[in-house]
């Protein structure tokens, strides 16, 4: 039995369907992420787990027990809010021990746990400060410490890294992974930032318009997106109109506008004549000057239209026949072929026959 079971949950606000029959199982000890664009229903789901909102239909069970009649203050679930929601009139120590004091724990117990928590979260020396005296990273750690001090069954994190600047965010991500591994509490994380989700999670659920699109491990989600939305939402991907010419167990034979015939990985159930979109990640597309790509089954001529230099990598937009373009992402330091191209260069582009995938309409 999963620790948290979400069963056929639906929630409407007037005519707007925030969640449409969503079912999910989250296992104990998992770092689980709800990912989706804003308005996809991920925050609504999080608020329901916390108890601030109720499903119109369906159930949410924690350790097999229905949470419906349990108010937020009675649930063994704590939240790290997007704004952190630190109490401005309380010190760091008073903020962190809030839940213990609400439950009227003995003072000695409160102090012992506070010390432990301050040490663990590297907040020793900040105990008597007020929230406005803290840096962004410190506030975030106080919010975490406060939510974790009475060892909840589940920790909910609502866009909890959004307020940090880019550099700090990366550090905090590593800390968060380590923390979760050390304490073993189940984390449910909500974010719209796919890189954050990929970096942190054991599993990710992708939501769109209140529907569950796919639940999978980060590498599977990125490498084998279940549908066009997921493919497009997670990372970048080239999308080309295509028609199935031939479908056999080892490969697909496709006709792609602007490219002609190509070979693609097999798609069970595809039948000749079917239309769809051939999708391929920019890093799977290679660019060459001469004929070094000739051994690839899929290779074409094109012209570099634009170059986006990003330091570690460059993104090239290559124009093919019929106005079709593909994006290719090349590292700038690849040994042996550290060749940079410029706009206007005539080049060859190509990819392996087992790269990319077809999504039919």
């Amino acid at each position, binding site marked *: 039995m999963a620790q948290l079971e979400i069963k056929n949950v639906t929630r409407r606000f007037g005519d707007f369907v925030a969640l449409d029959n969503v079912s999910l199982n989250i296992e104990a000890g998992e770092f689980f992420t709800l990912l989706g664009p804003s308005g996809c229903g991920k925050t609504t789901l999080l608020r329901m787990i916390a108890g601030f909102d109720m499903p119109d239909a369906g159930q949410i069970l924690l350790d097999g027990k229905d949470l419906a009649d349990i108010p937020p*203050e*009675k649930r063994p679930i704590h939240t790290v809010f997007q704004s952190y929601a630190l109490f401005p009139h309380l010190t760091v120590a008073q903020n962190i021990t809030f839940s213990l004091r609400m439950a009227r724990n003995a003072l000695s117990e409160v102090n012992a746990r506070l010390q432990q928590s301050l040490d663990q979260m590297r907040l020793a020396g900040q105990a008597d400060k*007020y929230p406005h005296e803290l840096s962004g990273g410190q506030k975030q750690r106080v919010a975490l410490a*406060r*939510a974790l001090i009475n060892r909840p069954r589940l920790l909910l994190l609502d866009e909890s890294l959004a307020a940090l600047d880019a550099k700090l965010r990366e550090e905090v991500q590593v800390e968060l992974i380590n923390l979760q591994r050390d304490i073993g509490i189940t984390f449910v994380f909500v974010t719209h930032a796919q890189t954050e989700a990929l970096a942190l999670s054991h599993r990710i659920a992708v939501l769109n318009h209140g529907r569950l699109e796919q639940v999978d491990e980060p590498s599977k989600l990125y490498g084998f997106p279940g549908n066009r939305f997921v493919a497009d939402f997670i990372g970048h991907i080239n999308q080309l109109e295509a028609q199935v010419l031939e479908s056999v167990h080892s490969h697909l034979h496709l006709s792609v506008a602007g490219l002609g015939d190509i070979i693609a990985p097999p798609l069970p159930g595809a039948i000749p004549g079917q239309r769809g979109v051939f999708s391929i990640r920019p890093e799977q597309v290679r660019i060459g000057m001469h004929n070094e790509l000739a051994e690839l089954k899929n290779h074409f001529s094109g012209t570099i239209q634009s170059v986006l230099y990003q330091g570690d990598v460059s993104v090239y937009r290559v124009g093919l026949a019929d106005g079709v373009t593909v994006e290719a992402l090349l590292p700038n330091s690849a040994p042996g072929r550290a060749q940079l191209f410029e706009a206007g260069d005539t080049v060859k582009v190509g990819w392996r026959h087992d790269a990319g995938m077809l999504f039919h309409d």
Partner: protein
Amino acid sequence: MTKPYNSEARLGKYLVGGPPFLFLLLMFAAPAVITVIASLSYPGEFGGLAPLVARDPGTLHGVTLETYRFFFSDFIYIEIFLKSVLMASATTLFCLSLAYPLALLIARSPKKRRDRLVLLVILPFASNFLIRIYAWMIVLGPQSALSRLINGILSLFGLAPVHLLFSSFAVLIALVYVHLPFMVLPLYTNLEKHDPSLLDAAQDLGANAWQRFWRVTFPLSLPGVFAGTALVFIPALGMFAIPEILGGTGDMLIGNLIKEQFLVTRDWPFGATLSIMLTIAVLMIAWLTAKLGARRYV
């Protein structure tokens, strides 16, 4: 705001600020100084003040602390002062307990409705001050429905009827009535700014409704509470019209005492002394509420 150029700043400051500055220097600062001087003077023979410099040597003149000595020598004046402080405190407390739920409700109403609810608090306050006091003369009058109801109930228990009008009770109720908006507005302004996610966080961490109010909402609203306290306490302390109209003979407050000295007894030096005492009390209250209401956090 960026700093204006020096020459322009000095010129502009006095060109723009000069007219109101001079007016208030003459019409506010000078009278204040005169009040201090008056409190240190002897009373004139026919009311008013004795001259500081004698016209003929037989009359009282010069500077004296006589009125201050007089104030502290007779306990009756200190008693009236204490009674006024007590009355103002009671007014503040009642205003706070009436205003808090109202301000909380307005602050937690949908945005569109808030302005209308606030306007509803301000509107009665816009009617003339005397009319609002007069209204209570009718409500508390001996033949009013309220009086008859209360005395009816009292007679059921065999108790003697009471007079609601011309009593401390009438004075207190009118003081609360007149000052209530001054408590509602600062409280509402404060409560409206509270981040609702703080209440969610408290609930998430196990606080029940009672704990959420006393541990989060109330301590965060303290700057509003003290701002409102200053706005109610200070004018209530100096009030003279309400006891004059609704109070009985024993309901005299500092304000009435000052009025007596200036317009009836015509002992102006003593009246000025009482004004100075009231000013000191007001400044103390203002200082205290500002200090207590200062936010230790941002």
